[in-house]
């Protein structure tokens, strides 16, 4: 847990992403991005890319490997598939974020819950539309970060989607170490506790 030094009123950019919506924006090297969990326990599925080169992107396994740990929090460096630091988490009042659980998709909803869940809205469709606007396609959508989501793993190797540990007003903040593009799907999932069964808006701020 680490509080931010930023002053909210001084943010140069603010936007609210409704549940089920996507958002993307270039964050310049040295700028700070905050994701703010307005109402609590809302998963913000997030991908990062090097600005101008979508082939260099956030890599969950490179990030886990380099830090020797599964969970993201203040001090975690978000690593690309080429081993470079995209961003570093510099403040976090939630304490733990997931990068094993990936995004929900209409296809995986059929596998996880029931074949009849296929029509329900899902993060991957939001990622696809955002990525198409960014000039990419389906191969550019890789394993993401789930800010504010709690996916505990036990020493025996069990993994679960547990009740959230976030709460209204908690936030995570990261400083870009190169020019990056952030792509967020504010998760619409209604079938598991990742959004507290009630998807709500998140706010993004940039300094």
């Amino acid at each position: 847990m680490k509080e931010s030094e930023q002053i909210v009123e001084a943010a140069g950019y603010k936007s609210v992403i409704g549940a089920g919506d996507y958002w993307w924006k270039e964050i310049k090297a040295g700028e700070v991005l905050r994701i703010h969990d307005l109402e609590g326990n809302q998963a913000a599925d997030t991908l990062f890319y090097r600005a101008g080169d979508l082939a260099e992107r956030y890599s969950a396994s490179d990030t886990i490997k380099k830090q020797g740990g599964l969970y993201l929090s203040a001090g975690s460096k978000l690593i690309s598939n080429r081993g470079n630091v995209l961003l570093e988490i510099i403040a976090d009042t939630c304490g733990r974020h997931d990068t094993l659980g990936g995004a929900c998709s209409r296809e995986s909803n059929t596998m996880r819950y029931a074949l009849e869940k296929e029509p329900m809205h899902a993060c991957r469709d939001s990622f696809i539309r955002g990525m198409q606007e960014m000039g990419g396609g389906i191969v550019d959508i890789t394993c993401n970060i789930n800010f504010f989501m709690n996916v505990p793993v036990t020493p025996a190797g069990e993994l679960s989607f547990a009740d959230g540990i976030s709460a209204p007003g908690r936030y995570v903040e990261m400083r870009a170490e190169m020019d990056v593009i952030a792509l967020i799907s504010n998760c619409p999932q209604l079938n598991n506790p990742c959004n507290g069964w009630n998807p709500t808006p998140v706010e993004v701020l940039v300094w």
Partner: protein
Amino acid sequence: MKRIYETNLTGAGMWSKIIGRGKILKLTDLEGGANVGMMLYNANERTERYNMPDTLKGQQVFYLRQGICLHTDMGRLIGSIVEDSVGWHDTVCGTSDAGEVKAKYGELSYQEAHNDWYRSGKDCFLIELAKWGMGEKDWMPNLNFFSKAVTDEKGALSYVAGNSKAGDSVSVRLEMDALVVVNTCQHPLSPGGGYVSTPVLLEVFEGDPVLEDDECLNSHPENKRAFRNTEDYHQLGFSR
């Protein structure tokens, strides 16, 4: 079962082929301590690929073993682990890169060592992927057969040495025609102290039809639904 193919992979070797639906790929750790990095793609639609998150969350597991299915990003299955004498295979830690190999083991060039030179898992993946018209965008968190990394309650990972012994094996039944890309570079969290090169026997067998009491089909209801999605895909697209 009839064996239709075999090859010996040298340490830090690489290999890629298309293996048809229903066939069984068997890997044997010949000397103990091997690691086989693997990525799997639908041979006909290569944007469909092995998906680590869906595999883990679909079966509420952090590692792979007999009875576990390998899920794609399309709600379908690309493989099933039908035999395994090891009990724990990693799919979270990814693969080594050139900088890590140099930092851990030092530099040994082809000029100095010929085929015993030091290579990274990432380089091997990218080389084999290129031969199928694929590249960096197609690489995703991969499988690491024979290797084990465990977590503590706070999420700190540690590598478990000695997970696989000489003669240990694991067999994957392909649930769709699959492009299989492998290399035998060390696990990325394996300790330094010497670049160990461990050989692996790779065999392919004709498989048997999946029966109703199949262990992988029945191990989780999620697998049953993913099998159904995979069956629908084949029924709609192909006559076989």
